[in-house]
């Protein structure tokens, strides 16, 4: 079974043909002809390595009304992803080998992306004692990323132990940096707007203080640290400093923090409520600059589906979080590619290569080259359309981009040579 992709532009460069056989890229060249091969016309389309998300909430088990592994996988494939890390804050929490293997198997069954479970750092995300990190690492799910996301590992001694312990597993602790005592009841970024809107503020310092502490700890014990959803200019500064000192720290930024600001809260529509909150325009600019210069290593979606009743409410009682998988690449095109901050190789680096390396995924984030696994996507960069939440594959509708025109459309996605998306539609 072979497939010929005609006229695609790898990394937006010269158009070539790509031959895919047995799940790998078998040949790259001009005007390839292979009798009997399926042909995919890709003239004008940009080819990129399949995207890898470090931060997805698939909600299964526990909240299958909001998302399932299958619906989330479909949303991911439509967004150009070939692998997603499924966060541990499910019900039950993914803090044992049993739960992570269950999620991993569900991902295999769906077969649209590689679903890579994230293991909880502490039992029940309660921040009291370590979960069985080794058992999860040794399980069929091969967990390498550990996170209590949604909660901060706030206890500094516990965080130190976690950082040390995962060294033996080639793992990384992905920290949700939020000092909980500074964010009691917090609803939005603390600043001019929170003061006027009467919504309790979430100060930038609550994120920055934890990141500062954690990079010092990681440096001290010589462990890998990953910082989830960096949202402030101050955090970027701290990361830049830490990297200059040789600390093994990596960081991610979400699409929504690259595009949206706390001005969105003016409507009191909780579709814009997210944790960490949308920040100021100055923060957005600093995050874009940090992503451009590599201080921030990766874009991660923090895709957080929520049922209608958890969002169609007053702001304070709504759950935080927004959808991201299906629009992530479009937002990066708008905020980074179109302004000239990243070229297509840069996009591949930040959305595929770096996240795969952080998650220790060997078959993802590979270059578009002969012999490599055929995990790739085809993007029509000229396409522009407003986002229609009703048309999303996710089971939930809490897209902050509703009605917003975004550039780029994923025309096709291939997972190990098999199309998961063709003509912009999921194949299964």
């Amino acid at each position: 079974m072979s497939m010929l992709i005609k006229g695609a532009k790898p990394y937006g460069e010269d158009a070539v043909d790509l031959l895919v056989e047995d799940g790998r890229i078998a040949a790259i060249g001009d005007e390839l002809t292979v009798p009997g091969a399926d042909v995919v016309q890709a003239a004008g389309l940009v080819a990129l390595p399949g995207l890898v998300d470090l931060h997805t909430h698939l909600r299964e088990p526990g909240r299958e009304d909001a998302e399932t592994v299958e619906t989330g996988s479909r949303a991911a494939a439509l967004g150009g992803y070939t692998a997603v890390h499924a966060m541990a804050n499910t019900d039950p929490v993914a803090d044992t080998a049993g739960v992570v293997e269950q999620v991993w198997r569900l991902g295999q069954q769906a077969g649209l992306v590689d679903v890579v479970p994230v293991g909880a750092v502490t039992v029940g995300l309660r921040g009291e004692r370590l979960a069985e990190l080794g058992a999860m690492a040794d399980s069929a799910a091969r967990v390498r990323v550990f996170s209590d996301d949604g909660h901060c590992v706030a206890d500094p001694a516990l965080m130190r132990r976690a950082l040390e312990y995962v060294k033996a597993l080639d793992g990384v602790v992905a920290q949700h940096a939020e000092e909980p005592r500074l964010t009691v009841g917090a609803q939005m970024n603390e600043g001019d707007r929170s003061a006027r809107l009467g919504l309790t503020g979430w100060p930038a310092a609550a994120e920055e203080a934890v990141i500062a502490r954690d990079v010092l700890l990681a440096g001290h014990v010589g462990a890998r640290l990953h910082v989830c959803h960096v949202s402030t200019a101050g955090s970027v500064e701290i990361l830049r400093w830490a990297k200059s000192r040789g600390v093994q720290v990596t960081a991610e930024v979400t699409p929504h923090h690259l595009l949206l600001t706390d001005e969105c809260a003016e409507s009191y529509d909780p579709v814009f409520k997210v944790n960490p909150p949308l920040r100021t325009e100055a923060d957005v600019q600093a995050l874009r600059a940090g992503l451009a210069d590599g201080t921030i290593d990766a874009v991660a979606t923090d895709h957080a589906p929520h049922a209608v009743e958890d969002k169609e409410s007053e702001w304070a009682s709504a759950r935080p979080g927004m959808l991201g998988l299906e629009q992530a690449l479009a937002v990066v095109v708008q905020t980074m590619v179109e302004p000239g901050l990243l070229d297509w190789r840069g996009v591949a680096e930040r959305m595929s290569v770096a996240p795969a390396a952080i998650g220790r995924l060997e078959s993802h984030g590979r270059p578009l080259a002969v012999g490599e696994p055929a995990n790739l996507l085809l993007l029509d960069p000229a396409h522009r359309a407003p986002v229609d939440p009703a048309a999303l594959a996710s089971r939930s509708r809490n897209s902050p981009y509703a009605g917003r025109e975004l550039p780029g459309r994923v025309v096709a996605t291939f997972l190990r040579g098999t199309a998961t998306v063709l003509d912009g539609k999921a194949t299964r």
Partner: protein
Amino acid sequence: MKRHLLEAGDLDRDDATLVLDTAAQIESALAGREVKKLPTLRGRTVVNLFFEDSTRTRISFELAAKRLSADVINFSAKGSSVSKGESLKDTALTLEAMGSDAIVVRHGASGAPHRLAQWVQGSVVNAGDGTHEHPTQALLDAYTIRQRLGRLDGVRVVVVGDVLHSRVARSNVWLLATLGAEVTLVAPPTLLPVGVGSWPVQVSYDLDAVLPKADVVMMLRVQAERMNASFFPSAREYSRRYGLDGRRMGALPDDAIVMHPGPMNRGMEIAAEVADSARSTIVDQVGNGVSVRMAVLYLLLGGAPDSE
């Protein structure tokens, strides 16, 4: 006038002045009458949807609506199964299906009236939302100031106390700025929001320094429980530094007035001798509340449904 009154910012200077003028006309029209009732809103239904206890505000709105001959439904959601957001929407749609023309809403969550306004056809009046705003309180405060001092433009208003958690303070800041008054906020820095620098006000931490130049002192309620979260060390220290007692009242100019939105903590932010003094407008504020709310209901509901 807009269709809803959600925050003081919904009123420009002309609108705000129209509300105050209308309230004055209504007050004089009803003064000394045996029948304190007008037929204006006959056949209209006003729902008081209260998710928090506030007997004073509810009664004030109820009286205002009834004096305009509207039918009034009091819906107290507190203590019932209604507590979360989904129910807020369901409740609103149910009330509207029953034919309500206006919903007067009090809610513990900032922005809840904005959400309601996105879901219903009728008018929404914010009767206090979380720590956001309480626009009719600000209107009645402005009305009271104008009644006592004869003007608002250039009046120096000092607002003292827990600005951080006060919807009354927020509404007053924006409305008084719209009407040309000069506002100074006085509080311990812990009880001022980060971002207060962007407000059209002066900020001071020293009550004694600002009192001699004040035309109006508005004391905000301060909950003693705030000291448990270290907003201030003790009720005694708060009272000593920011309370209005007889000595401080003596530092005010002769014509200055003292206001309080109620309910008061006598002995905490305001001494009994001050609350009961001739400078105090606290009783006037209550009475003026009815006239101002009648004006708001008339202006929102009196017109044609589509004349925005």
